């Protein structure tokens, strides 16, 4: 297989990655136990050590991915071979603003119009609002006037949204999948350069057993402080982490649901998702369908792969902590639902491991909360040291100073969070890529700012995750709220209303720490401080970024042509009255007669 490691090398690398993470977890746990023994081992300290093993192993896994991905991949020349397979570009949409959405479709169509390939475009609408649906149909009529696309542009709306997004795509395959060899699945906020689309088709052509090829989308067009920090992380760190993941993937790579091309025959064969027995949140339709679809393709003997060199793939991201938390709540439910698939027959071991990690990523906040609780209870119930355990003793017995061990654990954990970022910075600075981030100084300042900002926001985000997990475990369904792509600023009152439980949890815990374990206050301040200040952080980070030099990304420096074209078209369509077909003509055209 081209590009993916195989055989003994793959086994060795996977063994190293998993072994290294577990070893660091054991080391942290062991050091903590030593510290506990020095001050008096209790049930609570032993429990803390066990929990610390899981939490540290999880953090270490992230660091391991970065280490494995640190060394650059060999440059692969993009193919110029003739494109053979016919492809349909799928835009699944649901209650989206039609102007930017259809502008995306239009610029992709224009960019691909003269491409030497058989490419069609299908807009698959799940929009429930009748007014929004009528607007979509009018914009579709407008698109039908585009030259050269009359027979290659399709629109279909479902009125019954069976299976949500996965069901929307499955419905397309049931009706029309056999008309094309491949389907390029995009999101409503995705864009892809035409060269990237063609290269992905060529790679599918070249490898008949490749069922799914995932690109690494770059986050673009962020405006708020939070959004731009995420955008910088995506551009600066993600390629390294994803390269690490790609080196470990074998033929069971990741699928992130969009900006990926699939082989239709393989998809139909393996990706018909069952409805899970029982009610939501654990039963019903599979929310995070992508992970399962990737695992099922691998189970069917196909290859699933992410190629990190596929530049020219773009997506947008939430602009505020609240929008991020809303999306994360859906992902949380979806990932926890995967517990039902973890033991499914026939899955490859690596697929199963990835599903487990996906579940654990949402359980990690619970482990940290449990760790802090155990430590707090342990310290609060700690007896003062006995200097003269024997009544006839002349010299006192001083407790062993375990400060060094405690500090080692703390520094190690912080290091696992920060060190990968610093390593990525160190390896980026000498190369040409650093220019895209505004040069070495700017990249350094951006990395440091990201470390500070992510440290401040981590407790707040984890608190939202904790709440999400609790809601799922108590049986509350998240539904499928539409993403807010407008990126509006969050007022302080709204930020407080959304984060009130976090503020009160931070305050109550702060008081308890102050009363019962004041000496732990300094350790818990980085957690409880941001929780108490959550509304301020949420509101502040949703504001437009005052400076664009900090968190600069290559796509901001040299704006890709496809983005420029989209922005110009969306501004044109949004800024003036575009001659749209009348509602009556849209309804009496072929669109009205589409089966729903």
């Amino acid at each position, binding site marked *: 297989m081209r590009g993916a490691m195989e055989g003994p090398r793959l086994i060795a690398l996977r063994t190293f990655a998993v072994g290294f993470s577990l070893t660091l977890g054991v080391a942290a746990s062991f050091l903590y136990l030593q510290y506990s023994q020095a001050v008096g081992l209790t049930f609570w300290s032993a429990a803390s050590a066990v929990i610390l093993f899981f939490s540290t192993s999880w953090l270490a896994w992230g660091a391991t991915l970065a280490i494995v991905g640190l060394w650059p991949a060999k440059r692969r020349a993009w193919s110029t071979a003739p494109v053979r397979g016919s492809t349909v570009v799928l835009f699944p949409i649901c209650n989206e603003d039609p102007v930017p959405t259809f502008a995306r479709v239009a610029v992709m169509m224009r960019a691909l119009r003269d491409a030497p390939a058989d490419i069609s475009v*299908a807009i698959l609408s799940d929009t429930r609002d009748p007014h929004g649906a009528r607007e979509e149909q009018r914009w*579709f009529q407008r698109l*039908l006037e585009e030259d050269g696309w*009359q027979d290659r*542009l*399709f*629109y*279909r709306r479902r009125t019954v949204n069976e299976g949500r997004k996965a069901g929307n795509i*499955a419905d*397309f*395959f*049931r*009706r*029309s*999948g*056999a*008309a094309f060899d491949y389907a390029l699945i995009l999101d409503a906020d995705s864009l892809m350069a035409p060269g990237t689309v063609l290269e992905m088709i060529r790679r599918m052509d070249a490898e008949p057993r490749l069922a799914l090829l995932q690109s690494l989308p770059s986050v673009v067009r962020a405006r708020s402080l939070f959004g731009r920090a995420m955008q910088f992380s995506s551009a600066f760190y993600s390629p390294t982490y994803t390269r690490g993941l790609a080196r470990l993937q074998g033929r069971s790579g990741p699928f992130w649901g969009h900006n990926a091309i699939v082989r*239709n*025959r393989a998809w*139909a*064969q*393996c*990706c*018909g*998702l*069952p409805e*899970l027995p029982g009610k939501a949140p654990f039963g019903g339709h599979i929310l995070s369908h992508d992970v*399962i679809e990737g695992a*099922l393709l691998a189970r069917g003997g196909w290859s699933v792969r992410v190629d990190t060199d596929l530049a020219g793939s773009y997506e947008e991201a939430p602009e505020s902590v609240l929008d991020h938390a809303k999306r994360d709540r859906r992902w949380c439910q979806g990932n926890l639902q995967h517990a*039902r*698939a973890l*033991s*499914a*027959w*026939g899955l490859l071991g690596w697929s199963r491991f990835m599903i487990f990690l996906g579940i654990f990523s949402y359980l990690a906040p619970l482990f940290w909360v449990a760790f802090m609780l155990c430590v707090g209870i342990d310290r609060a119930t700690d007896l003062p040291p006995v200097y003269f355990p024997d009544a006839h003793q002349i010299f006192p017995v001083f407790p062993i100073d375990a400060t060094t061990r405690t500090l080692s654990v703390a520094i190690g954990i912080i290091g696992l969070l920060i060190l990968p970022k610093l390593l990525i910075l160190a390896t980026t600075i000498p190369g040409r890529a650093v220019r895209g981030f505004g040069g070495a100084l700017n990249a350094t300042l951006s990395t440091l700012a990201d470390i500070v900002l992510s440290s401040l926001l981590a407790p707040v985000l984890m608190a939202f995750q904790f709440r999400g997990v609790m809601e799922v475990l108590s049986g509350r369904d998240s539904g499928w709220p539409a993403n807010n792509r407008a990126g509006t600023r969050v007022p302080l009152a709204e930020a407080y209303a959304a984060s009130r439980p976090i503020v009160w949890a931070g305050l109550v815990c702060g008081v308890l720490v102050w009363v019962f374990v004041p000496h732990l206050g300094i350790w818990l301040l980085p957690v409880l401080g941001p929780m108490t200040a959550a509304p301020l952080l949420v509101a502040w980070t949703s504001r437009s970024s005052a400076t664009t030099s900090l968190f600069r990304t290559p796509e901001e420096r040299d704006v890709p042509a496809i983005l420029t074209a989209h922005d110009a078209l969306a501004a044109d369509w949004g800024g003036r009255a575009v001659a749209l077909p009348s509602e009556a003509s849209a309804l009496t*055209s*072929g*669109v009205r*007669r*589409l*089966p729903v």
Partner: protein
Amino acid sequence: MGETMTAMTMKLEDLHLRAEPVVSRPRGTLPDAPMTMQVQSLDPVRVGDVLRGLVGVSGRRASS
């Protein structure tokens, strides 16, 4: 009979009346090219399957 049919076809051709494919699909409608989405089973792995796999007998259940 064969000759008659050929003669008829020739005659239609001469009259430019060769039958065109019927276009019944409105513009923009998805092509009619169905695929069967095979619904997969996520049933848990069974001990029996594992044992059969160990002794070399295929234990994999077909998709439902």
